[in-house]
């Protein structure tokens, strides 16, 4: 049975930055998902595209960076999911549950919560098996048991002899 994994934008950024100790893990997982017949499916919100767009415009981008990033979004084995009302309503219920439970003071700032909730509620709406992020500390604060929040891990690492 196919495994559906949500990618927070921090995971995609780790690939685009080639971050030491992380970027290669993400690359290997994406490579696995791109293999014909793979049962690993990656999804992310269009919000990730927006967040990456903000970062790609900061100083330091390569000259041909935009076209390579365009190719990334156009060919990477990641399905983009629109923000939609039904998904967001789940996020709202999650937030209210947290407020009722008296856990509000532990939350990050209000601005951060809005984007976090879009990512997390989209993942829950899609009933993904796992939610991958490098910011698991913040995401794990939300009251939900429907999805496992964790950092990308090596189960999908490449087979020996495959050169990326």
């Amino acid at each position: 049975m196919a495994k559906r994994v949500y990618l927070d934008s921090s995971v995609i950024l780790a690939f685009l930055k080639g971050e030491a100790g992380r970027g290669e893990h993400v690359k290997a997982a994406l490579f696995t998902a791109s293999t014909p017949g793979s049962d690993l499916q990656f999804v992310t919100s269009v919000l990730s595209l927006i967040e990456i767009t903000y970062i790609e415009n900061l100083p330091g981008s390569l000259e041909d960076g935009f076209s390579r990033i365009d190719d990334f979004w156009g060919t990477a084995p990641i399905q983009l999911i629109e923000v939609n009302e039904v998904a967001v309503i789940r996020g709202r219920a999650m937030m209210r549950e947290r407020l009722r439970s008296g856990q509000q003071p532990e939350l990050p700032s209000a601005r951060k919560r809005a984007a976090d909730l879009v990512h997390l509620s989209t993942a829950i709406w899609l009933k993904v098996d796992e939610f991958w992020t490098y910011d698991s500390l913040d995401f794990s604060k939300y009251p939900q048991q429907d999805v496992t929040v964790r950092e990308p891990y090596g189960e999908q690492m490449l087979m020996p002899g495959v050169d990326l």
Partner: protein
Amino acid sequence: MMPCDIIGRQWFQVVTSGSPMITKSFTLQLDGMVTLDHFAAAIDAWRSALTDISNEVGREHVLGIYIEELTSGSALVTSNIVFDAEEPAEHFANDFVKVGTRARGENVIDFPKSLQDAANRLRKVAATDPGGITIASDTADILIFATGEQRVEHFDMHARRVSTPSVEAYGALRGKLQSLSSRTGLKVVLYDDTFDKGVRCSLTEEQHETAREHWDKHVVIEGLIRRDRITGRPLSVSQIWNIGRDERDSASQAWLKAFGVLADVEPDVPVEESIRRVRSG
């Protein structure tokens, strides 16, 4: 049109007397691998439901129920119902939504007891289909769940106090264009990439050729998307303003060339911190 329920004498009298007639369309859509037995049971339940609603409205106002469309690829049947006036047509459409909502297991205020059997029959058919069934009128799309999705329903019933079975928003859907029908206005069925279920799309005359060109291709359709209120599954798209080829190329490995492309952007900042800065504004 092929009559499937005839009140012929009244039909003839109204036509010849020149009284206004109102025609409304109602659709039943099945999902998944549809067996002949399942299709037969569904059609039987569909016929019974439309007949029961006709009786509730008043048979004298329902001049005929016709098969407007029968698409095997997506197991879809659209029935046109002809009424003698606007009021019973509206009454029928309202009762249709009530039956569908009841079949989902939701409470319906002032639900006519005479329609309980119709709701039960549709629910029974849906229970044997893993993807559920969809019934639709011009103004509502109602997904009746298969067993197992009720837990989700309970969650959202509390989260959102609205009575409509579907919600609408403008957006875009990606998927494969597979069924075409053009008897009266071109209709297409898109199998969306996320749920892999059929989504009915109504096109304008100007969009017919574009749809034909894109048949059996991956496309992006932009328009007013109606989703099931509980699962968020897209059910139909109307007011379509664009149909274009999905240019994504999943066979290409070009994405690999983007590895490390942002290596010099905030090089000493961990990715989670970069994202946090974006989210904090």
